């Protein structure tokens, strides 16, 4: 069952059981954005409180599987209080992680996977998802919504 333990790491189950930054923020001043997966019915609602170029606060609600819920919880913890540039960079790194080893080892480009994982911190627990292609959309649901929310604010 090693594969399954790769997917359901203890950090993921912990964030699923006790999601961080759960709740709502008043809109305005916060910005509200929804993400939806029509195939499985999972949804996420994100509230973004951006002051200047800092994501001061983030709250989430939604329903879904352990992967989508843990990923959104981990995401909120990783981006809260960060500058928008840092948030964008975290989104990019995470998306790269989800794209799998093929994309991060493109020819002619030296890539240090270890460094990537270190910058991701707890988010690296989600790397096991890559081995389960149908679950990647679960892990990326909240991230796509976050990116969309930031684009709407830009």
């Amino acid at each position: 069952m090693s594969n399954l333990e790769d997917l359901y790491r203890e950090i993921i189950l912990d964030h699923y059981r006790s999601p961080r930054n759960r709740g709502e923020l008043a809109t305005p001043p916060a910005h509200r954005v929804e993400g939806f997966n029509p195939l499985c019915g999972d949804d996420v609602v994100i509230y973004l409180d951006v002051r200047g170029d800092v994501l001061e606060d983030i709250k989430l609600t939604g329903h879904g599987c352990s992967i989508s819920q843990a990923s959104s919880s981990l995401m909120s913890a990783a981006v809260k209080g960060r500058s928008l540039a840092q948030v964008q960079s975290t989104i990019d790194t995470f998306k790269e992680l989800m794209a799998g080893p093929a994309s991060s080892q493109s020819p002619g480009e030296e890539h240090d996977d270890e460094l990537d994982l270190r910058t991701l911190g707890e988010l690296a627990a989600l790397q096991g998802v890559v081995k389960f292609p149908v679950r990647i959309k679960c892990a990326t649901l909240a991230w796509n919504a976050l990116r969309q929310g930031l684009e709407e604010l830009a």
Partner: protein
Amino acid sequence: MATGQRVSSFSARRVRADVPQLTRVVNGRTITYLDTASSSLQPRAVIEAMSRYYELRHANVHRGVYQTANEATEAYEGTRTSVANFIHAPGGASEIVFTKNTTESMNLIAKSWGAANLGPGDVVLLSEMEHHANIVPWFQLRETTGIEVRFIPVSDDFRLDLTNLDELLEGVRLLSITGMSNVLGTKNPLRQLASAAHQVGALIAVDGAQSVAHDTTDVSGLDLDFLAFSAHKMLGPTGIGVLWAREEILDAMPPFLGGGGMIADVRTDGYTAARGVTRFEAGTPPIAEAVGLNAAVRYLQGLGMVDVAAHERDLTDDALRRLELTFDGRVRVIGPLDAVDRGGVISLDVEGVHPHDVAQVLDQFGVCVRPGHHCAKPLMRRFGLAATARASFGPYSLKKDTDVLLEAIEHTLKMFG
């Protein structure tokens, strides 16, 4: 033994031995296939019939005069006769239209019969337990014709609530309903519904995708007007489905898709549609798939649908009882809890675990179930669910499949508990 009592020769073990895919090993375990409601597995008889066709007998139908072309036409048309016989079609082969699947069959009813016969204020009555294939085509028709779409509610015991059927039937021109719910397993009282529909001058269409492969289907005895089903849910191949309709209804229906094969004549100023069922079959049809469907029908008839139904009732009854005993409420069955008027489709709500996670853990045990809304979102909303994990039986299923299912659910609960 009483005279006339038939001796059953049905053996699920023998059926199992006929299905090569059931020997597959996934994650170190032989698979436990519990996803027949999505798609059934094929016995060798079906696979070999299609393979023989492609190896030696392939040609286009209804065209050539050479021997293999004649053979292909005979094989294709022969399936119509087998299917008509299988569902007891009163008018025989001339009432069998081949489509791509149940969904296309339902669309054909809506877009051909519906568009020609329904107008503003006419009501199409559905139920809350319909698959999207029997909802969306009617909403699409509503956009162009102004019909009203109405729903028979589903009660808390997962059956149709027919208390106000008389009121619901007011103004109804077509009652279109599933024979068996693909989520709940509930079998609907088709004879009663057909009689109620006919009393108000309405027709009745049945989505037979789930019911046809698991019990005897007698469209004459039930007094139906339309029946739609797919080959791939009845041990046959993907890519071919059936629409049966009474001959006088079919004869009055305008063509569906346009193209070759469905015409009597084409000129520069117009066309004349062919008569008969080919009017609904534009383009080269699924010939190999028809050959496979014929083999599937013969295989099922060889098993005996009465015995198939009895076997699956036994499995369902056993699974429902053991789910209740083993999990003591931590696993809720979304469907009737007794095996009466119910088929072998068992939707599960596992406490604290999302259906996608349930299905993922089950996969590690080689157990194939389907998580999701099962293309029945109005029904899921009715019961406040986003999704369920669904296990479903076929004629090759055994009680030992339920053993593995229970073991895997036990593990899931431990993991997420």
